[in-house]
């Protein structure tokens, strides 16, 4: 099915897209059909910067198990970092 399910959030950081590095401003997370990955449904993440056009996008399509493992790894990595390093980036 087309789930239409979509979560969007603002983010700060950089991503490397088809034309190199660019600042990312937003993330879109959804569980729906992939464009490229095997399987009918994947957890898809787009890191984008709409002000730079639709091509300013870093995209991943992950099977559900991989996506959960990645999410846990991200949280574990942050939880394990020294608290003093976790301040938001300036700007």
């Amino acid at each position: 099915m087309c789930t239409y399910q979509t979560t969007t959030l603002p983010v700060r950081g950089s991503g490397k897209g088809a034309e190199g590095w660019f600042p990312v401003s937003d993330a879109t997370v959804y569980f729906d059909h992939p464009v490229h990955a095997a399987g009918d449904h994947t957890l898809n993440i787009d890191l984008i910067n709409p002000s730079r056009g639709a091509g300013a996008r870093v995209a991943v399509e992950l099977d559900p198990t991989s996506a959960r493992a990645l999410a846990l790894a991200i949280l574990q990595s942050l939880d394990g970092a020294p608290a003093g390093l976790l301040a938001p980036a300036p700007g």
Partner: protein
Amino acid sequence: MTDAMRAETVQITGHAGDTVEAYLAQPLEGPPAGGVVVIHHMPGYDEATKEITRKFAARGYLAICPNLYFREAPGASPDDAAAAARAQGGVPDDRLVGDVDGAANHLRSLASSNGRIATIGYCSGGRQSFLAACSLAIDAAVDCYGAFVVAPPPEGLPINVEPIVQLAPGLSCPLLGLFGADDQYPSPEEVDVLEQALVEAGKEFEFHRYEGAGHAFFNTDRTSYRPEAAAEGWQRIWEFFDRFLATH
């Protein structure tokens, strides 16, 4: 008569007078023909949808697929455009109707048009095909497993999709519905509700439900593809268009 066709990107006038990109395919010879507006699925104005558009031209129809995401992402690759449109909340219903109207008018303006128009859409485009047929004066419409025609989408979706079954009394043309019996979006119960609404509104329609098929059974690029259901479905489409689009 040859089987030659021409397929190309054109510019049409869509909703609110906007210039919108579209993919047009047409036979180079033959009698005046009916036109098919192909409404692409959520993944966008992609190669698979262009192939479907050419399939109609190979069958002798004029066919056009407007790029519903052109405003969000002119010139972008289909997957980037679909991502951009999704992030911005999807295609508003009124804009969809305006773009389909523009695409239909473009087909009618062709010298080889017989003036008759159908819409067909898959997945989200199935809902939009029904929406267009309830909003515009056309001659035939095909809904391939469109979700959220009857049932509201789950809570919290940022995408603007509302049920439209209440529009059934305004349906302007015969409707062909093709559904997978294993689909949950739309579920068989939702298809029942749409069927009942069409009966109550006194509309001409035919629904076919395919056992062993779920959502997107026409999609040859996905594991959801069900060749038996797809082949049957295509046959129903050709018969339907022969009845309602051909020059008689």
